[in-house]
């Protein structure tokens, strides 16, 4: 069977849902960040697959993927900065104990 756009899109959807499940249910903040990275990667696969199969000459999806990678890099740097600041003041990275905003 020839590999087509659908294969890449279903793989992307599966990877996105795995990442989403982890991001929703993990208690360690670093595990949540890792799951968010998995979701970014899933979206990038979909972007590049669309670019390859729908508009092969334009590379629009690849440009999008480059911007997503940039945002992901900024996000993980800031996320770890917040995490370290939080760990310094609260001594934990468990979301069950990070409840400063709880009423």
């Amino acid at each position, binding site marked *: 069977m020839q590999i087509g756009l659908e294969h890449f899109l279903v793989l992307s959807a599966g990877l996105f849902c795995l990442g989403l499940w*982890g991001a*929703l*249910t*993990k208690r360690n903040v670093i595990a949540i960040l890792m799951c968010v990275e998995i979701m970014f*990667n899933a979206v990038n696969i979909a972007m590049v697959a669309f670019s390859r*199969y729908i508009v092969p000459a334009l*590379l629009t999806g690849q440009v999008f993927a480059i911007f997503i990678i940039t945002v992901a890099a900024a996000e993980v740097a800031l996320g770890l900065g917040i995490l*370290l600041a939080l760990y310094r003041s609260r001594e934990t990275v468990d979301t069950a104990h990070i409840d400063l905003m709880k009423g």
Partner: protein
Amino acid sequence: MVATLAFWLLAAITVMGALSVLFFRDLFRAAIGLIFSFMGVAGLYILLSADFLAAAQVLIYVGAIAVLLIFGIMLTRESHRGNPSNRMAIPGLIATAALFAAMAFVVTSTRWNISAQAPREPTTDALAAALFTTYVLPFELASVLLLVAIIGAIVLVKE
């Protein structure tokens, strides 16, 4: 034939890496699995003839983001607690499985307008031309975003 085999192999590596993040108790092993997943995605980019993006994936995700995450694991010393889930594990699984079923149904039932054109190879010069002409404003905004992220990270981590 080779492309088919490569796709299934890379898809297996990518999904197994993601599953290891979800199921390994040791966060270090989860991070190693995540690196395998990133490498699998880089292979998928090569399969999609996105050579520049594959190199960028290896440099940025495997080289920078994974190392940053491992630094985070080491600096927080919480690895003895493992990688627990909250109470929502089963409802979350059901919800995301339903989302996956819906997305897979939509993807497979849509008639995509597949182009018969051969993909552009190599992509680096065409990407550079696109980034510095059509997409020059988002490109500059992305550099400002990175600068803001650098300054923000320094301010946050400073005592």
